[in-house]
């Protein structure tokens, strides 16, 4: 994990990634950051500085819910859950994103 190997996220994708992560199971902020980093094999590294404001924003939009729970290690942590509005939003985002991705792929393919 070197700084040069990290990639900046396309704007708007962070919300999508968080939602996708939370679809599997409710998670706390630290868990989300870890999950993204692990799954992207360290390519994506979410700055905590943008993660928490993003979580607040998504909560206000009604995509996720927050509640305090105990972790397996018996610590108090704030867990986030996807709401039905969040699931709907993710569905829209996902299809749009995949379309975009394949379009970019086609353009970037060597001629």
């Amino acid at each position: 994990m070197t700084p040069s190997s990290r990639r900046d996220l396309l704007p708007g994708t962070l919300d999508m990634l968080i939602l996708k992560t939370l679809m599997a199971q409710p998670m706390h902020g630290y868990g989300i950051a870890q999950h993204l980093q692990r799954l992207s094999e360290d390519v994506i590294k979410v700055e905590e500085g943008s993660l928490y404001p993003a979580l607040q924003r998504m909560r206000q939009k009604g995509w996720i819910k927050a509640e305090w729970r105990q972790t397996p290690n018996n610590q108090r942590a704030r867990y986030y859950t996807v709401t039905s509005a969040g699931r709907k939003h993710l569905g829209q985002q996902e299809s749009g994103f995949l379309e975009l991705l394949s379009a970019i792929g086609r353009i970037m393919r060597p001629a």
Partner: protein
Amino acid sequence: MREWLNRLRDWLRRDELDRELTEELRFHREQLERDARREGAPADSARYVARRRLGNMTRVHEEARDRWSWPWLDHFQKDLRYAFRGLRRSPGFSATVIVTLGLGIGANAAMFGVIDRLMFRPFPHLRDPSTVHRVYLTWQDRERSRTSSAFEYTRYLDLTKFTTSFSQFAGFATRGMAVGVGDASRERLVAVVNASFFDFFDMRPALGRFFVAAEDVTPKGANVAVLDYGFWQREFGGKNVLGETLYVRNIPCQIIGVAPRGFVGVSEGEPPAVYIPITTAAGNEPIERMATNYYRTYNWGWMSVMLRRKPGVSEATASRDLSQAHVRSWNAELALEPGGTPAAIARPAAIAGPLRTPAGPDAGLESKTLLWVTGVAVIVMLIACANVANLMLARVLRRRREIAVRLALGVSRTRLLAQCLTESMLLAGLGCVAGVAIAQWGGAALRHLLVGNISALDVVTDWRTLFVAAGFALAAGLLTGLGPAYLAGRGELATALKAGAREGGAHRSRMRSALLVLQGALSVILLVGAGLFVKSLDHVRDLPMGFDAEPVLYATANMRGMRTTVEQQEALGQALLTAGQAIPGVESAAWVSAAPFQSSSATGLYVEGIDSVRKLGRFTFQNTTPDFFTTMNTRILRGRAFTAQDRKGTPLVGLVSEAMGKALWPGKDALGQCMRVGSDTIPCTTVIGIAENAVERSFTGEKGFMYYLPIAQHEPGSGFALMLRMRGDPRPHQETVRKVLQAVMPGQSYIRVQPFNEIIDTQRRSWRVGATMFVAFGVLALVVAAVGLYGVITYNVAQRMHELGIRIALGAQSGDVVRLVIGQAIRFAVIGLLLGLALSLFAAKWIEPLLFQQSARDPVTYGLVAALLLFVALAASALPARRAVRADPNSALRTD
């Protein structure tokens, strides 16, 4: 939308959210620390790594916090608190402003409540009200243009046949009819409507069903009835009444349904109690000729028509379509009954107008007057706003130094502006609360004044009125806040800091003077209006009516559709008269065929030497008994009244009014002349007396052509009415008279008794409303303007104390100082006065039609208003002038 609600909720619990975030971030840091330790880092460097990884904690915190903090909301909260403190510090100022705005807002809310209910409010349950119209017919009659919403059923059928622009039609009428049997029977409003009427509304019956087209057919519909919800609740306790029989007039109707709660049809006053098919009502008319011909002839205009435009048809197209249909209908009428005016001359047309008649083209004088009064209320509001703006300006000027200090300390001008506006909005909001309270109270008074027209005037529970009140408050807040806010935000900082609380810039006093002049001018307009309406009302009261109605009771019989023969009519009339005359307290009584103001009859009249009597105007007659003239106190100028000897078989006789005599036999003595009544082959009716002119139907535009015939020589007709002259106040006798007369009435028929004056008062109402409201608002305006003038002069004197001190030190006498101060007030007053008088003269031509025999350019009224305004200006400046005289030359010379 939901996001904003969430944000607002977050803002409300922002401290809690802050704590939660801190905890959340601490948890995150602990996890990172643990990870670092697991990788083998020592404790303190692990902490360091974690801290670094988490980045700038404060920044995370702030960014997250931005999501729930709304800076402007925070500011607003602070401004509000600041404004509250400010208002509490100067309770006199706050109270003045709140009361002033409250009066303005209250007046407007109350008037809006009236006007809205009268003209604009859509009827409950009506689907898509903007496409529904009432049809108004227009035509030319003897050079006069006529407008009416009264239809013959035949004409209604013509319109449905001849037009293509409409998707729905319904005929309807509301009439008082006897409902119920025996002692329980009362006169109620009954709506007679087509079955299609109910299709205009989106609703389900509360019980049963509405009637259908098959039950509403010519010549005679089915005997079915739908009850009003309220009537059902009150009279039947809301129990299942389906299938029961309800007598409407003499028709036994089967109750088939109950209309839903809140449904009033299209009635403008009290809701009807019962709905029956229109063809059922018309087909059962007591007069045979009407009952059998109502749908194929054109002599009975009694109903209204509503219709719905098809989608895409404009109002103009709709009216054009209706107009051509009216022309065809007019020609159809001519084909059936030749001899009428040809369409080319009468120019029949029609308008798809508002459903509510007071908003329509043939609106009465009263609703026009009310519209003016509403305009007046808006003027009162403007005066109130001008006044408040003036007070706020003075306040800002006084706080100039404070503001300069705050600006110097770096408060942005936008924030300052926001603060000023918050203050004015807060005041306007409080004014709104006061206004709603005032409107609620004033609404009760208004209701009293407008009895009959408005069923309920509750302001507090009516969101339309509340909405308007809030709108006025918002406008007032902006109007009164922007000027001061503008002033607060500008100006030279350094000068303000140096100069302190003295000396206002020239432009500031210009603005205030302009407001003052405006107030004066507007007050003048209102006062002139008040004066004119008061004089009108006086004229109406002083009008020689040709009778004295004060002690007269008026009794009318309702036959409930009973058909009577001429012999029965004669017997019943005579019985009623005899019974009436025998009642103690009755001075004299007369049996009349038509009571003044209630109804009138006219028929063909033929006089030798005159081609067409009709062309001279409308001549109405009254069939009555000999005591009529003593009962009504109508003087007989010459000749004699008829007596019991003028009866069937004796030569026909009659009396004419003075005006009628002069019109028919100009330059000749009307006594002894011959006129033929009904047809030109009938024997002469000899004029045996001339009666003074009497008002007959309305106070305006009548020539007073009336003649009186002995009822004994003619068919009495089926309308029974008695006029009874009582000794003294007729009111206490009302019930006794009713009981005695009721005993004479046959079968289900019944009698109604009321003081005759009540009927006349309804006619005078428009001028009474105008006079009362204009006076109330005029006085209100004057008081507000006087307070404003007083405030400004006082303030100016306070500002000029220094200058005045120097003047006194230099030898100015008290008289000079007083002249200086009062002169300023008078100058304002005179400019405002001139402007107001000019505007009044300009508006005169519109207000004149509302007045009664009163020029809107009456010099006496104008003069009185001028004197009043100058007097008030003097009074308002007297106190400040006294203070000015006491300016201390010593302190003036010492201060700088």
